[in-house]
């Protein structure tokens, strides 16, 4: 009844090309943005910001980047954690080795280093496809895990590769409280989400999708696979690299290579599969699901146990968490193999017709 585009005529090309062509969507997004920028910092306490919102923003950014590669270009990658690590350690090295390096610039340059590495490890994708490629990308993951642990120069010769950034500055201002950190991450996320959305709507995004749907056919109609695949690797690694730098600088503060291990790669892949492959919106849904679920399980299980008079040990909690998490993933895949984004669009379709049947 309320969600209908009747009577919204597009009278210019600009109107036809806008990201949210329906007025109600624009209002919704504006409200959501207002909520994110002003509402959340006002309402959420420090713990919520630190434990949920900041990780959610950063991992959304990383999932967004991975979704470009896996969801839009169809190149399965299990090396996202490595891209994050390269971004984080490159930014760290720029901060400590270059005098007066502004943090924002260091983070973006970290992303550029991740791009270079991503393209390098993306080269095999020109010959290798599908699951073979997925395993091949693990080479990047294990190589960089090793490199940051063993090659002292990268970590300024700190033992066990643990490094940290003490103070954060953005545009000359100190970023210290959780709210300020939250805003910093939100800023990055908004800029990159807008960029990604526009990229996938442009000619290059259509090239990626053509390659994803059938690479041979795409090549036949004149899309260069080399260019399309490598740009997807480049854009994706850049975004993931920036997310990695943010994860290290803003969320963790000090970190070691284990923060970007293969588990991180799997986690990101889960996010985009549960959220929805080939959907910008889906990256956010997936990230929210993966960030929130373990925390909820962690809080709820001992409480539930207490209800029935059981004290559940921490080990049992963590095992049950594993089990439930695995079961939930399988359940989601069975119920909606196309992810939460598909549920969202089905919901929107229903809303359009409501209250009529069809």
């Amino acid at each position, binding site marked *: 009844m309320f969600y209908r585009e009747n009577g919204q005529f597009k009278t210019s090309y600009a109107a036809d090309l806008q990201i949210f062509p329906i007025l109600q969507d624009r209002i919704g997004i504006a409200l959501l943005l207002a909520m994110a920028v002003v509402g959340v910092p006002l309402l959420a306490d420090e713990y919520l910001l630190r434990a949920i919102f900041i990780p959610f923003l950063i991992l959304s950014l990383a999932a967004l980047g991975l979704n470009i590669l896996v969801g839009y270009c169809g190149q399965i990658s299990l090396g996202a954690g490595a891209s994050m690590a390269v971004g984080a350690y490159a930014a760290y090295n720029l901060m400590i080795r270059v005098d007066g390096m502004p943090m924002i610039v260091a983070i973006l340059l970290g992303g550029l280093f991740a791009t270079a590495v991503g393209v390098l490890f993306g080269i*095999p994708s020109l010959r290798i496809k599908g*699951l073979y490629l997925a395993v091949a990308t693990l080479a990047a993951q294990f190589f960089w895990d090793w490199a940051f642990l*063993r090659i002292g120069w990268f970590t300024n010769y700190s033992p066990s590769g643990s490094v940290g950034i003490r103070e954060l500055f953005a545009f000359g201002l100190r970023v210290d409280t959780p709210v300020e950190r939250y805003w910093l991450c939100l800023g990055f996320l908004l800029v990159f989400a807008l960029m990604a959305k526009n990229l996938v709507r442009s000619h290059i995004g259509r090239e990626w999708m053509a390659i994803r749907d059938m690479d041979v056919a795409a090549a036949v109609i004149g899309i260069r696979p080399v260019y399309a695949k490598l740009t997807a690797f480049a854009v994706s690694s850049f975004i993931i690299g920036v997310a990695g730098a943010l994860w290290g600088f803003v969320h963790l503060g000090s970190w070691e290579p284990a923060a970007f291990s293969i588990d991180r790669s799997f986690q990101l892949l*889960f996010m985009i599969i549960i959220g929805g492959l080939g959907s910008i919106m889906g990256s956010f849904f997936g990230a929210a699901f993966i960030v929130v679920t373990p925390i909820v399980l962690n809080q709820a299980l001992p409480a539930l146990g207490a209800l029935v008079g059981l004290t559940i040990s921490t*080990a049992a909690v963590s095992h049950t968490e594993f089990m439930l*998490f695995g079961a939930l993933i399988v359940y989601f*895949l069975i119920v909606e*193999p196309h992810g939460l984004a598909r549920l969202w669009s089905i919901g929107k379709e229903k809303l359009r017709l409501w209250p009529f049947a069809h």
Partner: protein
Amino acid sequence: MGFFLETVIGGLMSGMLYSLVALGFVLIFKASGVFNFAQGAMVLFAALAMARFAEWVPLWTGLQGKLAANLVAFVLAMALMVVVAWLVERLVLGKLVNQEGVTLLMATLGIAYFLDGFGQTLFGSDIYRIDVGLPKEPMFLLESVFEGGVLVGKEDLYAAGIAAALVAALSAFFQFTATGRALRAVADDHQAAQSIGIPLNRIWVVVWSVAGFAALVAGIIWGSKLGVQFSLSLVALKALPVVILGGLTSVPGAIIGGLIIGVGEKLSEVFIGPLLGGGIEIWFGYVLVLFVLLIRPQGLFGERHIDRV
């Protein structure tokens, strides 16, 4: 020269063990097109079951003697793996027929998480020992040829022998039994196999059970070497490059791939490792595979994939 041979033999032994895990991957991929990331979790689960049952069986039944306890434990653990296979088919794969490869891959990752948690809830999460009587003491070969001879772990030798026997048995099973033929038919073409009356669901249960068997054997051997603990499930990550190197669809490929990676890893660790700071066996297999795949994208023995528009 003696040292070189020793490294090579050590590599061959650990390569054989990698192939054992890799075999599980290949079997399932061949028959259902699922890249089973849960294989590592299955190894851990099977090993945990084996270790704990061997402990519990004498308590429950008052059975005397290690051999009897181990045998009963083996049977029980195998039965458990069959149940797991049946449940996986029933609850997960049967509902995900015709989904894309990456969705199935993620589903098996979900299974892996579940099995990791479930196994440790059921059997505990300490380090357990499996003692099936594999001899531990090393022995020396070729002492007349080289000074000092070549040091070989007897345990490794037995393990390699068991792995080889298992591979031979599985090959025979695939080649000569009716079920084996049905498995190969399903691997070839799901729809054609179904249309001539091969029950897909049952075949999948069989394949997952066989993969469970391979996992159990791998779990016992690895477990008696390293102890049964959570890190056992990471063995799967070692076996991944083996599978890819040999080709996802080839049983002999898994064996030869395992041997190549086992030897390559040990040699590189010993001869190149010190130059780079050590520990390079973590990624050596993967990087090796990367280069091989650049030349042969389908792995050494995989079926050549022809794209059509």
